[in-house]
C-alpha cells in the first residue's frame, strides 16, 4: 500500500514535477532575461555615457589649450622682439571682510596695525584711506597691482581677509619707457594715447592677438634717448624735453621720447598733462635748424652755384619795418658755409630772398611742413603754416625771409626729423612710421632734393659740427653732422620772449653714409653751471646728442671709425675759423 501509494504518488508527482520543472525553467528563463535586460540596459547606459563623454564632451576642452594661451590683449614688442606691453596675470590686493565668517572682526589684528604693515610694503599708500577701507564692511581693491615680491610679504602678514587674486592686466615691463609711443590701457580695458589706442582692434581680435606686434622702436635706444634727454633736462632745469631718432632710409622711428613722461602701469594716474606728446603734437618755431632747408632749396634751384660768394652780414637787414639780426656781428661778409657754421640769420634771409617765396614754400610743402606729421599716433599737431598774402597765396617777402631761418613757421620735432632725413638720405622724403618695416617694402617717398644737393648738404652739416656751432655734438668716430637751433618762444616784448628758448639740435650720423637722424629739443633750458651759463643749443642739446650717439651707434650697427669721414676738403678752404652762436 505504502509502496503503491508511493509509486502512485511518485507517478503523479513525476507528472507534477515535470510540470513544476517546466514552469520553474520558464520562470528562470524569464528572470535571466529580465536580469540580462537589466544588465544590457545598464551596460548600454554606461556605453552611451562613455560614448557621450568620449566623443562629445571633449570637443570644447580641445580648444582650451590654444584658448588658454591666447592673451586677452595682444602683445606689443620692440623691433627686436622684447616685450613692451603684454597682458599679464598680475596680482591685485583685494580686501574680503567675509573671510573669517559673517560675524565678528574680519581681521586678526586691528585695522590700524594692518594699515601700518601695508604702509611698510607700499610706502606710497595713504594710511587714512587704508584704515577707512579696512574698517568698512564692503569688499574692495586695496591695490590694483601687486608685485610678486610684495605678494609674498602680504602673505607673511597672515591676514586671511587680504586676498591677492591674479587678474589679467596690461603690463609694461619697461615702466615709463616709451610711454608716449605705447600709451596705456584703462581699468575698462580701453587703450589710450599711443599705439594701444591705434591698435585697439587688432590687439583684441581673437584671430590676430596671438601674434605679437613689432614696433619700429628699439628699446635700448629708447632707453638711451630718454636717459640722455632726462639728464640734459635736469642739468639745464628745462621745463621739458623731446627727442626722436629716425631711420633715414625707411622712415622708421627708432626712438621717440617726450619728457617728463608718465607711468602707463598706473593707469589710474596715467591720464594727466604729461600724456601730451611734445614730439608729434606740440608745434614749435624751431629756429636755425631750418637754415639747411633754405640752403638746400637754393642749391637745388640753382640759386647758389658758387659757395664762395659772400653776402654782407655786418648790419641788420631791415625789411618793411622789421629788422633781421644775428646773435652777434660775424664781420663784414660771410659765404654760405660760414653762414651755416655761424648760424647767420642775415645771410640766410638774403639767400631766401634770392631764392624767392614760391620756391621756398614749395620745398617746405614737399617736406610735409604744411600738414600734420605722418605717424600712426593719434596725437598729431597741425603746423602753424604762414599764410600767403598775395592772390596766388604766395608768402610775403618778410615771411619768406623769416621762414628761411625757422621763424614764423611752427612744426613738430617729428617734422624736422623727417625733413633732415630727406636732406641727408639722397633727397627722398618718407613718412615716419612706428611699425617695423621690412627692408623690401620701404615706402617709396617723394623726391624733394637732388642727390647732388643732398651730398653737398651732408658736407655742410658735417662742417657745422666740425667747425661751427655743433662742435659739442662731435662724437668721436661717428662722423656726426647737424645744426643747432635756438629759437625764442613767442610772447613778451616784440612778439618774442628773449629769455625763454627752444633749443634744438638736429643731427644725422654717420655723415659719409647717413643712417639715422637724431633730433633733441629742450623746452626753456636755463643757463646753469653745467652749460657754462649759456642757454643756446650749442651748450645744452649739442652735448646731449654728443653723448647719445656713442651710446646708440653700436646698438644700431654704426661702428665708430676714426679713419673714415665725409670729404669736406673742397669746402674747408672757404671757412675761416671764427666762433659762432
Amino acid at each position, binding site marked *: 500500500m505504502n509502496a503503491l501509494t508511493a509509486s502512485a504518488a511518485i507517478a503523479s508527482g513525476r507528472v507534477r514535477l515535470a510540470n513544476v520543472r517546466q514552469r520553474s525553467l520558464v520562470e528562470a528563463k524569464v528572470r535571466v532575461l529580465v536580469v540580462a535586460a537589466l544588465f544590457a540596459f545598464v551596460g548600454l547606459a554606461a556605453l552611451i555615457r562613455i560614448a557621450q563623454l568620449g566623443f562629445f564632451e571633449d570637443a570644447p576642452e580641445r580648444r582650451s589649450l590654444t584658448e588658454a594661451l591666447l592673451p586677452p590683449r595682444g602683445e606689443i614688442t620692440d623691433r627686436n622682439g622684447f616685450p613692451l606691453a603684454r597682458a599679464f596675470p598680475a596680482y591685485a590686493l583685494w580686501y574680503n571682510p567675509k573671510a573669517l565668517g559673517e560675524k565678528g572682526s574680519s581681521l586678526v589684528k586691528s585695522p590700524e596695525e594692518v594699515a601700518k604693515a601695508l604702509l611698510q610694503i607700499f610706502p606710497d599708500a595713504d594710511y587714512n584711506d587704508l584704515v577707512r577701507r579696512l574698517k568698512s564692511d564692503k569688499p574692495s581693491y586695496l591695490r590694483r597691482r601687486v608685485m610678486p615680491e610684495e605678494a609674498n610679504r602680504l602673505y607673511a602678514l597672515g591676514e586671511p581677509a587680504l586676498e591677492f587674486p591674479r587678474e589679467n592686466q596690461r603690463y609694461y615691463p*619697461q615702466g615709463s619707457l616709451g610711454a608716449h609711443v605705447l600709451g596705456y590701457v584703462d581699468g575698462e580695458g580701453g587703450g589710450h594715447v599711443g599705439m594701444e589706442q591705434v591698435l585697439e582692434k587688432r590687439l583684441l581680435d581673437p584671430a590676430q592677438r596671438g601674434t605679437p606686434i613689432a614696433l619700429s622702436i628699439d628699446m635700448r635706444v629708447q632707453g638711451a634717448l630718454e636717459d640722455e634727454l632726462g639728464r640734459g633736462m635736469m642739468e639745464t632745469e628745462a621745463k621739458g624735453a623731446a627727442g626722436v631718432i629716425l631711420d633715414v632710409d625707411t622712415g622708421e622711428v627708432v626712438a621717440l621720447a617726450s619728457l617728463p613722461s608718465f607711468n602707463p602701469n598706473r593707469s589710474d594716474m596715467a591720464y594727466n598733462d604729461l600724456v601730451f606728446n611734445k614730439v608729434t603734437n606740440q608745434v614749435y618755431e624751431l629756429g636755425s635748424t631750418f637754415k639747411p632747408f633754405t640752403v638746400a632749396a637754393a642749391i637745388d634751384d640753382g640759386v647758389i652755384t658758387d659757395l664762395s660768394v659772400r653776402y654782407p652780414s655786418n648790419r641788420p637787414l631791415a625789411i618793411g619795418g622789421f629788422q633781421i639780426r644775428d646773435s652777434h656781428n660775424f664781420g663784414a661778409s660771410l659765404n654760405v658755409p660760414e653762414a651755416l657754421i655761424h648760424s647767420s640769420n642775415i645771410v640766410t634771409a638774403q639767400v631766401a630772398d634770392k631764392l624767392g617765396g614760391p620756391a621756398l614754400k614749395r620745398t617746405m610743402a614737399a617736406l610735409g611742413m604744411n600738414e600734420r606729421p605722418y605717424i600712426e599716433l593719434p596725437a598729431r599737431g597741425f603746423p602753424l603754416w604762414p599764410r600767403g598774402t598775395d592772390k596766388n597765396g604766395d608768402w610775403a617777402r618778410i615771411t619768406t625771409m623769416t621762414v628761411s631761418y625757422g621763424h614764423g613757421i611752427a612744426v613738430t620735432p617729428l617734422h624736422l626729423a623727417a625733413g633732415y632725413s630727406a636732406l641727408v638720405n639722397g633727397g627722398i622724403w618718407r613718412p615716419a612710421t612706428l611699425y617695423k618695416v621690412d627692408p623690401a617694402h620701404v615706402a617709396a617717398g617723394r623726391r624733394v632734393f637732388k642727390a647732388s644737393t643732398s651730398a653737398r648738404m651732408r658736407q655742410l652739416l658735417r662742417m657745422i659740427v666740425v667747425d661751427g656751432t655743433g662742435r659739442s655734438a662731435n662724437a668721436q668716430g661717428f662722423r656726426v653732422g647737424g645744426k643747432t637751433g635756438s629759437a625764442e618762444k613767442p610772447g613778451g616784448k616784440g612778439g618774442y620772449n628773449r629769455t625763454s628758448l627752444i633749443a634744438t639740435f638736429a643731427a644725422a650720423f654717420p655723415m659719409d653714409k647717413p643712417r639715422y637722424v637724431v633730433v633733441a629739443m629742450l623746452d626753456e633750458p636755463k643757463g646753469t653751471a653745467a652749460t657754462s651759463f649759456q642757454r643756446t643749443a650749442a651748450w645744452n642739446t649739442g652735448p646731449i646728442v654728443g653723448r647719445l650717439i*656713442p*651710446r646708440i651707434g653700436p646698438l644700431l650697427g654704426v661702428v665708430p671709425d676714426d679713419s673714415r669721414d665725409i670729404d669736406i676738403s673742397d669746402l674747408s678752404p672757404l671757412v675761416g675759423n671764427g666762433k659762432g652762436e
Partner: protein
Amino acid sequence: MITSANRLRSVGWFVLLGLCFTLVLVLAFRVNALRSRVHHAEEKIVALKQEKLYLETEFETRANQQQLKAWNDVEFGYAAPGASQYLEGERQLASLSMPSTPDAPAPIRVASMDDSVIASAAFPAMVSPLSGKALASGDRKAGASDDDADDGPRAPRMGHAEAVETLNDRLGKVVEVSSGKPVRAETTSDKPRPVKAVKASAKKDADTSQKTAASQKTTAKTKPVEVANKSSAKKDTKPKAGTRKEAKATT
C-alpha cells in the same frame, strides 16, 4: 541535437558579441583615460607657459632699461666702446700682430682633422697650359733654376706634395734661431744690440726655407761675436751678461 547546436551557435554569437562589447568598453575606457591624461598634460603646459611668461615678465621688469642704467651708474660704469675697440676685418686684425721674436710664446695652433684638403686648396697643383696636366715638381724645379742662378743662394723650391706635407709645420713655426744660447743670454742682458741684429736677420726673409734658416744661423752666430769682440777684445767669443758688464765698466 539540431536545436542544441543552434543554441550553442546563438550562445556563441552572444558570447562573441559580449566579448566585442567588453573589448570596445575596455578600449573606450583606455581612450578616455589617455584623453584625460592628454588634457592634464595640456593643462600643465598652459600652467607652465603662464609661469614662464610670468617669470620672464618679472625678469624683464627687474632688468628694465632704467634699472640697468642705475646699476651701471652705481656698480659697473661701463661706457660705450670707442673707435679703437673695433676691427674692420681680418686684415686689420692681422696688422695688430707682431713679427715673431725668439722669446715669443708658441703660436696657438688649432686642432683640425686633416690639413691636406686646406693645403691643397692653398697650393693648387700647377697645371700646364698646353697639356692640361698637373706639372711634376721636378719640371718646375728645372724650369725655375735659371731664374734662381743670379739671386744668390736660395732654398730649393718644394714640390706640391712636399708643400702640402710640410704646410702644417711651416704655418705654425717660429723661426728658431738656433745659436740659441748666446742670443737668449743677450736678450736678458741690458744691451739689446745683438738681438736687434738677430731680429733684422729674422725679418729679412719671410720665405722660411731651410737654406735661409741656415744662413740666419750663420748671421746669428757671427753677429754677437762681433759685438762681443767690439766691447771686449780680450774676452772669448761666448759673451755673457756678467762679463760684458765688467767690460763696460772697464771701458
